[in-house]
């Protein structure tokens, strides 16, 4: 009876602490603003099919380069395509690229970082040297070099983002693994005969995943920026796919005719990066106050 009571107490406590994290997040005004923006952007990207007034590649050549009208709330581009609709669909590209590449980086970085931390010393030095060398490139220059060879596409963008962001995850995973490697519970597990794979995946992963998830949430705006930047240079999505970067690219070409395309491509991009940054910082403050110093 007594044991049962204490068990239910502890589960209550756990529920309360989870709840209080959320309360803390919402109490932070920037966190709340970030959360609202992120929810709005994500839902408008998911619902683009229903809420966009036009197809993103539908032409209306008579109404080209128009300013805002009741028919086209954010005006049209040089082919008479509705900028609002293109902007809504552009959110899909930005968010899916961010989601895919951040998850890939996280998984690969986690794996390589654990390998470096847990594996033999030589492998560790080699991997660290490779990570440092990847960080030695200015990101955009690396992207330009890869694109010259492979040709521009969304997959190239994802590959570039993954390669340049993996070292960040791997470094954290490696440091944490090195710290855990000689703790008593890992030694105990190993002396019971656990194989390295088991130690890594069932004991080290749960202990290193939290800071990696925080880094991932803070990397989302960075990745969105890289995709938009490359698409802005005409090296990301292929036309007629709409991305905030490609809308900006067209808007930049016609900047002396109409400011509306630049506004429609840039403002959602600014809002999204701000929203994710505010949310990421609030999450970090709530879940890992130790990281705050960096």
């Amino acid at each position, binding site marked *: 009876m007594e044991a049962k009571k204490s068990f239910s107490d502890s589960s209550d406590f756990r529920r309360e602490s989870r709840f209080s994290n959320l309360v803390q997040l919402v109490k932070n005004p*920037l966190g709340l603003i970030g959360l609202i923006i992120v929810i709005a952007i994500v839902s408008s990207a998911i619902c683009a099919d229903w809420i966009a007034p036009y197809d993103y590649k539908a032409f209306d050549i008579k109404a080209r380069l128009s300013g805002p009208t009741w028919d086209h709330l954010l005006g049209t581009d040089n082919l008479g395509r509705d900028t609002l609709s293109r902007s809504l669909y552009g959110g899909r590209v930005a968010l899916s690229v961010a989601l895919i590449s951040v998850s890939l980086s996280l998984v690969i970085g986690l794996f390589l970082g654990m390998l470096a931390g847990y594996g033999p010393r030589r492998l560790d030095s080699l991997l660290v*040297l*490779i990570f*440092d*060398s*990847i960080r*030695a*490139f*200015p*990101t*955009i*220059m*690396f992207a*330009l*070099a*890869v*694109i*010259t*060879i*492979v*040709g521009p596409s969304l997959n190239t963008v994802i590959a570039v983002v993954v390669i340049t962001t993996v070292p960040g995850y791997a470094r954290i995973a490696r440091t944490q693994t090195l710290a855990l490697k000689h703790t008593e519970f890992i030694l105990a597990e190993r002396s019971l005969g656990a194989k390295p794979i088991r130690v890594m995946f069932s004991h080290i992963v749960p202990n290193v995943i939290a800071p990696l998830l925080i880094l991932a949430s803070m990397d989302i*705006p960075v990745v969105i*920026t890289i995709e*938009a*930047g490359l698409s*802005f*240079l*005409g*090296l990301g999505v292929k036309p007629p796919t709409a991305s905030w970067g490609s809308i*900006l690219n067209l*808007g*930049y070409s016609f*900047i*002396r005719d109409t*400011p509306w395309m*630049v506004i429609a491509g*840039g403002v959602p*991009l*600014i809002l999204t*990066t*701000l929203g*994710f*940054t*505010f949310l990421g*910082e609030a999450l970090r403050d709530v879940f890992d106050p130790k990281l705050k*110093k960096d």
Partner: protein
Amino acid sequence: MLIYIIKRIFLAVLIVCVAMLLLLSAIHLVPGDPAGVALGPRATPEMREAFRVRMGLDQPFIIQYVKFLANVVTGDLGVDVWSNKPVSSIIGAQVPHTLRLTLLGLGWAVIVGIPLGCWSSIRPNSWIDRIVGLISVSAIAVPSFIIAVYSLLLFTVTLRWFPAIGAGDKGDPWDQFMHLVLPSFAIGLGWVGYLARLVRASMLETMGENHIRMARAYGLPTAKITYVYALKLAILPTVALLGVGVGGLLSGAVFAEIVFARPGIGKLVYDAVMTRNYPIVMGGVLVTTILYAASTLISDLITAALDPRVRENL
């Protein structure tokens, strides 16, 4: 200190070499064919073969890499596909433009960002501190190429206060400066935010230390304590970050040069990507990587000169 300098320089050279090895092997491994990419789909097999021989792509990978490094050491980066001029002189002509832009961007970020960080650290959690914090986060979050495009829209297209195309008249420093204002504003803005935050955080840490409390107890003026005693210590992590910052600024400079149609490495490499001019792209990537490595090297050496503890850790 001498041992540290030698070790650190060796590390910088090693990292640049490994970085280029990674890049070349990535190019080697991907299914695309540089000759096909450079010459376009209509090239005949003979033309492709000739291109491969001319660029040394027909040789084994290791030989290509060693030759590449040997050529780099002698300052030979190959010849431009289109004009047959040496790549090193084409890039060399653009480096000063990019350096000027990067340094001016960094310069105004340092001049504004560091005092801003000090200022907000004097009264932590006051409304000044909160506003500075909010502005810093926003400045960091907004992509610099958006700032470039919007400042072009506002100050060049709409208000016509600043010129956009080119780097300005060669003999007219004022004209050149006017051409630099908007691009350096755009690439430096994010760094104002970074520096303000970083300086604030390390100031707050330093302010709690004994010698600062001692200075306070002696009744020294707050301004002197903040800007002389505390800043001297709190500036260390900032110096270390500035070197890394140059890498970000170089990326930003690529966009700023394209948006404002300025000459520079970024514009050069971008145009080369568009015309599939492989040697220029590789040379540009190499030169920017070296610039980046050099700037982290310099900031690390300055940090080591200021802080003996750092020297022990390499």
